[in-house]
């Protein structure tokens, strides 16, 4: 049985356990993808995903059902990821990041699509958290500028600026790595 998002929200509010399961199954991939993109750690991402859904189910009665639920869930996930990153920054680092990673790839040209994706993956992981978040929400989660701005509680212009800078940094990183097409 397929249920649209507002109906699903109403069913969850009515206490239907199947609706709760359906909500989690429908959106937990998106939420986990964002958390994993932001945290780069599988266990941490799962923990934050669980926390995101627990908070969402706790606050579902205050949610405006006229709004789409996906940006709302991603907003909670983004906030949780920021908190987790802030906690991680307080911990002592285990090993310094090697500076050799920025060196150019010795191969003459990288035309393998998998390798291109891997290089971009590496470059995305080196972005600042807010740039990485915006880049992931736009290119991975396919959210619009307005939805991202709503999720991050930032102006649309800020989101556009962050995405533009993220792309510029990624392109520069790829060029520094010697990735050419």
């Amino acid at each position, binding site marked *: 049985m397929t249920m649209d998002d507002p109906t699903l929200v109403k069913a969850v509010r009515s206490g239907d356990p199947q609706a709760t399961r359906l909500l989690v199954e429908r959106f937990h991939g998106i939420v986990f993808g964002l958390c994993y993109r932001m945290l780069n750690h599988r266990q941490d991402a799962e923990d934050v995903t669980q926390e995101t859904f*627990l908070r969402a189910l706790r606050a579902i009665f205050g949610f405006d059902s006229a709004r789409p639920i996906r940006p709302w869930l991603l907003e909670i996930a983004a906030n949780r990821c920021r908190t987790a990153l802030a906690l991680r920054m307080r911990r002592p680092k285990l090993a310094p990041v090697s500076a050799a990673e920025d060196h150019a790839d010795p191969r003459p040209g990288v035309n393998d699509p998998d390798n291109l994706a891997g290089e971009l993956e590496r470059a995305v992981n080196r972005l600042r958290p807010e740039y990485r978040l915006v880049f992931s929400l*736009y290119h991975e989660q396919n959210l619009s500028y307005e939805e991202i701005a709503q999720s991050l509680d930032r102006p649309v212009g800020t989101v556009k600026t962050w995405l533009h800078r993220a792309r510029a940094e990624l392109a520069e990183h790829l060029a520094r790595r010697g990735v050419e097409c």
Partner: protein
Amino acid sequence: MNCQDCDQIWNQLLDAESLSRARVATGLEASPQLLAEREQAACTHALGCSRCRQVQTNYETLRRALRAWVSSARPEMTLSPALVERILAGQKTGSSRRARRWRAALPLGAAVAAVACLIALVLAPLPWRPERVSPGSDRGRPPGPASGSALRPSNRPSDSRVLSAALADATAATWDLARTTSEPAARLGRQVLASATQVEYPSRAGASAADPAGSSYPGLDSLTGVLPVVPQAPPGSALLQQVGDGLSASVRPLSSTARQAFGFLRIPSLEKTDNSPLHQPASKGA
């Protein structure tokens, strides 16, 4: 076209790499033909601009990497099947924990509420308690408009009524306290002055006859018994005269200011002394 336009065109081209739904939502929907025309214009500009040529090369690489990145499956991002069960179990645990917490806090909350109600009953001004108003005075009345017809106490807000009642109580209590403490002092003062201004100090034996009210003050009787008895006490005005003379003698030489200040003690003698500077004729004027 300038370099900034070239950057904007490349941003639009990279925007177009995401799904069309996002492009429609942002209003950046452009037909593929229009995008191709803009890309061609950017390429034309980059041919004559070394900076934009490098930027174009980098963005072209990024676009290809984006296409490969979006289409590639990331195995590490596949979910563990137990995550959904973990979330649902966490929700049940959280709700049952909250319910347990509420059940545990219920007796404590009830006790706190009972104590709060008791305190409120004790401290709150009772509406049926009569208002204490001092006799013959308006100070015990709660503050309000002078006419009193525009705003009746029943029409005021409850907090202002409570405040007015508390103020009236405090005013009445202050008035009663002042009256209670000042009346004996005033009576004693009157008694002392009356006894001092009598023609003679009453002897101990004739105290009750000279002052019938003296019998009602046994403390004064005992005090006169302790003090040395003066058989022929000077009259009250003579006593005041003696005190004034003593004062003026002990503080001599007095300045004119001091004499003016303490001159009320020497009023009878001032009339006799004509060489007092206060009574010297003025050297100027009429």
